[in-house]
């Protein structure tokens, strides 16, 4: 039985089934950990993508692996879909509940550590907050590298589901590069161990496929994280430019010079204005664009390359280069950047945030095109993003009190994603596809590509009960075996690329 067939069930049957499942869940994990009261359920009706809301039928507050095993097994037996949820900060609706389904909340599973300093590893449960890992590792001069802007509140379980990134993944990579092992509850309730403390366990790298699968392959109940040595030196520079082109050109020039900064972040005038109003970060006055550039590593290396970066920026007509003199000043530079999303809420009643990726070399053209597209429909777009990675976060501002503006903004956001695809990029760099962008997957991938991904899903979740309706544009029964297709691929036909 699959979730997609459930819509055919009569409402009365559905209610009876849900009641029976809730009773079994209570018997298995304990009365107080199972919520069915409508007011309580509404707490879980959305994640960080708040314009998508679905009230689940049941919420399970898991406190240990066995609770997750029990909950998933009972869902599997009842043929009821389940959705895992951590802190609920995801921006693509990955934790959006399924109507009549179960939400399994993992935020009470917060066991962390101890830090294994010699192996630079730590084992954590999924509800552990990202920043706590670095906090606990700090006494050993270690840190957990992935640092999404929400790191003070987002959970490692959610990070693993979404393959979370952050400002420093330019140099350090993403969650998938820093998770070495996981205990996973498969959608039939069985438990498997993928990877571990050691590298290269014999067998398929199922962990690599699991990370970033957005809850569609199972639920991780424990993860072994790789920690990195805190570098000897860190230097951060804030650079002000009079044009977006010059800022973008500086990014390319730095990379072309063979320098790999820990982070290169960019904000445009609108994003600067918002951040300034919100957190008074003291960004250069009159800047049309700023870059936050951070280098880390051995002291001599950082100093030499920092000087080189400053020269590159000045050659691109930077009008101000400000170097953080201490940790407090560095924190302020980052505060402006990391609070930008929330800050934009202060200058606009509403906004859509996007997460497209483009090849770095196309930054100037793509930013110009976004600006042109925004002008055409009369909307404002604030850009605040990971420039070194080409990972754009255009914030499309709108006022939902104005008739039709929300719709226009949604269309513009969608058009920007398509621009990313035609530029050779991706519809998501770190937020995930989730419920929000699944209809765009067919623009980035061929039907064969998506069918092949489904092969993996069907191996893990033949009944399609793990977070159905996410990532993929159309659910497919696992019994169907796709044959080779003939004819021209849509991607090829649209002139977006060769099949090879």
């Amino acid at each position: 039985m699959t979730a997609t067939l459930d819509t055919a069930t009569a409402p009365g049957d559905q209610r009876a089934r849900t009641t029976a499942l809730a009773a079994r869940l209570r018997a298995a994990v304990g009365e107080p950990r199972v919520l069915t009261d409508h007011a309580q359920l509404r707490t879980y009706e959305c994640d960080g993508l708040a314009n998508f809301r679905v009230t689940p039928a049941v919420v399970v507050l898991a406190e240990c692996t066995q609770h997750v095993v029990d909950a998933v097994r009972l869902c599997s037996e009842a043929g009821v879909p389940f959705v895992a949820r951590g802190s609920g900060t995801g921006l693509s609706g990955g934790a959006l509940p399924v109507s009549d389904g179960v939400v399994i909340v993992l935020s009470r599973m917060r066991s962390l550590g101890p830090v294994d300093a010699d192996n630079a590893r730590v084992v954590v449960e999924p509800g552990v907050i990202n920043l706590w890992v670095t906090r606990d590792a700090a006494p050993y001069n270690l840190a957990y590298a992935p640092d999404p802007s929400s790191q003070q509140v987002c959970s490692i379980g959610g990070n693993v589901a979404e393959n979370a990134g952050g400002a420093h993944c330019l140099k350090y990579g993403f969650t998938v590069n820093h998770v070495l092992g996981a205990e996973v509850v498969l959608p039939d309730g069985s438990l498997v161990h993928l990877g571990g403390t050691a590298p290269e366990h014999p067998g398929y790298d199922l962990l690599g496929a699991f990370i970033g699968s957005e809850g569609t392959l199972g639920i991780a109940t424990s993860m072994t994280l790789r920690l990195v040595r805190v570098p000897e030196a860190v230097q951060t520079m804030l650079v002000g430019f009079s044009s977006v082109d010059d800022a973008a050109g500086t990014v390319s020039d730095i990379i072309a010079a063979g320098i790999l900064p820990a982070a290169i972040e960019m904000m445009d005038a609108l994003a600067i204005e918002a951040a300034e109003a919100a957190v008074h970060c003291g960004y250069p006055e009159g800047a049309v664009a700023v870059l936050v550039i951070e280098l880390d590593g051995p002291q001599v290396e950082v100093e030499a390359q920092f000087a080189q970066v400053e020269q590159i920026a000045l050659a691109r007509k930077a009008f101000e280069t400000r170097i953080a003199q201490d940790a407090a000043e560095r924190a302020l530079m980052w505060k402006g950047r990391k609070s930008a999303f929330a800050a934009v809420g202060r200058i606009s009643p509403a906004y859509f945030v996007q997460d497209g990726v483009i090849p770095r070399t196309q930054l100037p053209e793509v930013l110009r095109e976004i600006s042109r597209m925004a002008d055409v429909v009369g909307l404002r777009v604030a850009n605040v993003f990971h420039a070194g990675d080409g990972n754009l976060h255009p914030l499309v501002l709108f006022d939902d009190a104005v008739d039709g503006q929300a719709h226009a903004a949604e269309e513009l956001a969608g058009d920007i994603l398509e621009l990313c695809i035609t530029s050779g990029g991706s519809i998501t760099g770190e937020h995930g596809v989730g419920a929000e962008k699944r209809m765009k997957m067919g623009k980035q991938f061929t039907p064969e590509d998506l069918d092949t991904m489904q092969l993996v899903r069907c191996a893990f979740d033949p009944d399609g009960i793990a977070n159905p309706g996410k990532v993929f544009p159309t659910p497919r029964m696992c019994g169907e075996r796709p044959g080779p297709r003939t004819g021209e691929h849509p991607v090829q036909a649209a002139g977006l690329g060769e099949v090879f």
Partner: protein
Amino acid sequence: MTSVSATAVSTTRPGTHDDAVVGVVPDEVVRPADAGELVEVMRTAHAGARTVLAAGGRSKLGWAPAPRSVDLLVDTTGLDRVVEHTAGDLVVIAEAGVRLSVLQEQLAAAGQWLALDPPEPGATLGGILSANAAGPRRLRYGTVRDLLIGVTVVLADGTVAHAGGKVVKNVAGYDLGKLYTGAHGTLGVVASTTWRLHPVPAARRVVVLDLADPLAAGPLAIALARSTLTPTAVELRATIGGPASLTVVFEAIAESVTSQADAAVRLLGGGRQDDQLPEHFGERPRATDDLVLRLAFAPASLTAVLGALPAGTEVTASACTGIAHVVLPDPGALPALRAALLPHDGSAVVLSASPALRSALDHWGPLGDAVALMERVKDRFDPDRRLAPGRFVGGI
């Protein structure tokens, strides 16, 4: 889609003993000239229910067990185009048959490289991906899974499937590149690969420390890993019970490598400096008839692992990463070694062995509790078990 051409037909020939894969001679060998021909070859093989095994430079065929059957060996070296190198994006797209050495030469002109340095000469990108081969610089840059950003694979039935893309940061859809990495061609034949690149470092400085006892390398490796030094490689060469040397490689700007090498000498309590890598740097120990293994274990367990190896065992180890290659003088010692590795989350996988040894050996060792799931994955991708049958864990 390119249809099968006269060229494709003319490049099909009977298999010979030189084509044997761990002793199994393929009935036929075909060398598609391009990706379109590869698709045609796979479709035809699928229609004819033939077993298929892909090979590139054939430098690592011994890393997996003998196939149960090979009707058709697909030689991928004809897929030799470097499709796109965008220097400003630090990204390259190259077909599976491109040899790593050829690619590196081309990238070097732009001051860049693919940060993989497996030592096998003639290795192709497809083979490196499929065998998950890496070398000493895995310490700094990681392995295939950290550098591959996109892949195109031809599945058992001829379906062409892409995953990833040509931007480094990309979380759209499942990351199937990870799944194909190290799968020894049991899920599909790799046609094209897309990689993240790195700038070639400007300078190099090497510190070599001779050790009277190989086991002394363990604490030194931990000390290096916990320091702020950023070596690109820390390599141990040793014979258990005999001499050993630890090579620490710094590759960065000149100011940095000089000061780091000095600091490393202080930290290690000695060592001689050089600008050149020592002879045989990064090579894996080789033996024609003996048993060569790849060990993987928790990195800080190096001392314990070295201590579990019988006297006379030749070892090279990427000392800070938990990877070692060994020639085990007595193959009978393998079960005991595997048992000794277990507390360190360790494994010992066969890389080469004499034919007589192979038939008696457990190639992979203990496999954990995910093998059934791996079989389900295989069954979805290749339900008729025609791709490199028997070449993977659990008889996959």
